[in-house]
C-alpha cells in the first residue's frame, strides 16, 4: 500500500477506532471538516459525533476532558490544530495528565494521545512552526514520539493509542504529503521506546528524529565516499532508547545529534550529555549538535532557512566532526 505520512496517521486512527470503541477523537474541526489538514477525513461519517467530536476552541478543556474520559476507560486522541497551541493546554498536560497516576498511587492509568502538526519549513511563521517537544521531555509520566516515516507514523499511532500512559505524538507537517511510502497491508505496531537504525556505518553516528531524518539520510548517501555514517532515527523521544545510542557511539566513536527544535535546551542536549558521560572513553571527537539557532522560527524564507537546520548545515556539521 503506497501511502503518505498523513494518510498513515489517518489509517492508524481509523483502524484503532474500528478495533476499540473506547477510542474517541476530540479536537477543533476534526469532524465536519475532517481536520485542518484532513487527517481525520471521513471519520465523523464512520464513527459519528459521539466519537469524533468537534470541540470549542479550548485547548485546556480538550486535554482536561481527555483526562476525564481516560479515567473512565476511554482512550481519547486529542488533536491540537497546530501543535503550537499546546501551550494553551500546558497545565493540563504537565500537571493534570502527567501526575494523574502518580498522585493516585497507581490507581488509574491515563491512556490519552495528544497529537498535532509540528515543525517548520513551510513558512508558517512564529506560531505555526514550533517544535516544543523539549518542554515535555522534562516531565516524568509522559511519553513522546515523533515519527519520520509513514510506516512509523502508522505504527507509532497504534502503539500510542494502545499505550496506557499519556503519549504526545508529534506529527511533522512538512512531511505530511511530501513522503509516500509502501507499507504492509496487514496490521503492525511500532513499539514505543525503540529507535530505528536507518543506516549502518562505521565512522560517525548521526542521531536524529522527525523531518531532519530525511536530510541526514541524503547526506549519508551523498557523502558515502567521504565518510561512513550510521543513522539512528529515535522515533521515540521519551523514553530515549539509550541502548541503541550507546551501541552506535561505542562503535563509531563520534556522535552528531540533529533536530529541528532549537539547539539550546533541546532534547539533543540531554542526548549529548548522556553520551559525553556514558561513552566518555569511546569518543574520538566531541559530541556535536545541530539544532535551530537561538531565535523563534521566522516567516521570511531566508530567515527561516537561516534559523532551521538544512541539508547544507547537516553536511557541514558531519564534515567538521568527521575531520576531527
Amino acid at each position, binding site marked *: 500500500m503506497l501511502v503518505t505520512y498523513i494518510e498513515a496517521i489517518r489509517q492508524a486512527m481509523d483502524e484503532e477506532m474500528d478495533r476499540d470503541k473506547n477510542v*474517541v477523537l476530540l479536537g477543533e474541526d476534526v469532524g465536519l471538516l475532517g481536520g485542518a489538514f484532513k487527517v481525520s477525513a471521513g471519520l465523523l461519517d464512520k464513527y459519528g459525533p*459521539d*466519537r469524533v*467530536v468537534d*470541540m*470549542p476552541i*479550548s485547548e*485546556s*478543556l480538550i*486535554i*482536561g*476532558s*481527555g*483526562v*476525564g*474520559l481516560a*479515567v*473512565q476507560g*476511554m482512550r*481519547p486522541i486529542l488533536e491540537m490544530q497546530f501543535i503550537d497551541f499546546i501551550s494553551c493546554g500546558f*497545565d*493540563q498536560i504537565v*500537571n*493534570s495528565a502527567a*501526575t494523574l*497516576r*502518580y*498522585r*493516585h*498511587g*497507581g*490507581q*488509574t*492509568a*491515563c*491512556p490519552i494521545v495528544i497529537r498535532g502538526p509540528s515543525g517548520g519549513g513551510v513558512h508558517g511563521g512564529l506560531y505555526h512552526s514550533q517544535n516544543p517537544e523539549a518542554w515535555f521531555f522534562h516531565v*516524568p*509520566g509522559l*511519553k513522546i514520539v515523533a515519527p519520520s516515516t509513514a510506516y512509523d507514523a502508522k505504527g507509532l499511532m497504534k502503539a500510542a493509542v494502545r*499505550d*496506557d*500512559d499519556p503519549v504526545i505524538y508529534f506529527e511533522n507537517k512538512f512531511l505530511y504529503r511530501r513522503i509516500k511510502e509502501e507499507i504492509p497491508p496487514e496490521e503492525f505496531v511500532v513499539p514505543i*521506546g525503540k529507535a530505528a537504525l536507518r543506516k549502518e556505518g562505521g565512522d560517525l553516528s548521526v542521531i536524529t528524529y522527525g523531518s531532519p531524518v530525511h536530510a541526514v539520510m541524503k547526506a549519508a548517501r551523498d557523502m558515502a565516499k567521504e565518510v561512513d555514517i550510521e543513522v539512528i532515527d529515535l522515533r521515540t523521544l521519551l*523514553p*530515549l*532508547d*539509550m*541502548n541503541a545510542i550507546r551501541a552506535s557511539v561505542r562503535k563509531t566513536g563520534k556522535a552528531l545529534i540533529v533536530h529541528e527544535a532549537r539547539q539550546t535546551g533541546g532534547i539533543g542536549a540531554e542526548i549529548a550529555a548522556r553520551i559525553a558521560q556514558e561513552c566518555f572513553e569511546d569518543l574520538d571527537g566531541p559530541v556535536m549538535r545541530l539544532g535551530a539557532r537561538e531565535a523563534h522560527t521566522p516567516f521570511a524564507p531566508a530567515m527561516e532557512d537561516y534559523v532551521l537546520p538544512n541539508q547544507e548545515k547537516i553536511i557541514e556539521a558531519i564534515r567538521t566532526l568527521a575531520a576531527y
Partner: protein
Amino acid sequence: MTEQKDRELYYWLRLIREFEDRISAMDKQGKLMGGVYSGKGQEAVTVGFCHDLRWDDWIFPLHRDLGAFLVKGADPRRLMAQIFGKRDGFAKGKDSYLHGGDLGNGIFGATSMLAATLPVAAGMAFKFKIRKEDRVAIAFFGEGASSRGDVHEAMNFAGVHKLPVVFVCENNFYAYSTPNELQFGVDNVADRAAGYGFKGEVVNGNDLHAVMATARKAIDRARKGEGPTLVECKTYRYHGHSEHDRADYRTEEEVITWESRDPMILWEVYLEKKKYDVEAIRNETAERVRKAVDDAVAFAEGSPAPEGPEAMEDLYAMPIDTEAR
C-alpha cells in the same frame, strides 16, 4: 425525611467537623507536614451534595472538601493516612491532603491548580452522556477559582452538550485574603450560568435542607439529560486559608456572625423542632465520631512511611525500560 436520615446527616456533619478539628489540633502540635486547609464551617455543602449520590457517580472535590471524601465513601483511615503522607493513603504518600483521590469510590484527586478539575469533570460527564449512563459528575470549586479560564472552558463545553455535570461554587467570600469584590464584578458567580445556556442557583450553603433540595434538583436534571447546573453556595470558612494563616484580613464580628449560622447548630435546631432527644443524639454522635477519628488517627500513625525508592513507582502504567535509559 426519616428520623434515621435526620440522624445520619447529623452524623456526617459532626464526623467532618471532628475530622477537621483533629487535623487542626495535630497541625498545631507539629504532627503534620505541608499545607492544611480546613473546611470547618462549610460542612453542609459537601454533605448536601454528596449524601444522596450513587456509588458510581463522581465527585471532584476542592482543596477544602475533605468532607466530600468522607461522605462519598472514602475510608476515613486511608484519608487520614494520606494526610500523614503514609503508604496507606490513596496517593501512597506521593502527595498529601486531597491530591490523591479514591477512584474506587468515584472521588477524583485534584492537582493544586485551582479549577483544573472542571475540564476533567466535563470530560467524564461527556462519557456518561455518550454511553447513555445516568450518572453525574459534581465539580466543586471556590469562588476564587471561578476566575480561572478552565472554569469557562469547562462550563462552555458542558453547555454545548448539556452534560450531566453539576458545578458547585463554594463561595466563602475569600480566596486566601482576596475578598469577592476584588475577585469579580458581580454579586453571584451563579449569574454566569446564563451565559452558558444552563441554570444557575444561589443557595445558603450553611443550610443543609436548602443545599440538599437544590442539589437534588440539579442532580435530577443532570441524570435526566437536561444539562448542567451551576449552584453557588454562600458559606464561610472559620479558619484561615491554611492553618498558617491568621486571617487578619477579616473582622472578628464577621467570623462571629457566620459562626451563628453554623450548619451543625442549625441542624440541631431542626432536630429539636422535630422533638428528638437532641442531647442524647449529640452525645451519642460525639462519641461515635470521636471513635471513628481516633481509629483513623491510630491507623494513620501505624501506617508505614513510604521508603525512598517508592518514589519511582506509579509513574507509568506501562513501565518504561529504565535499563535502556
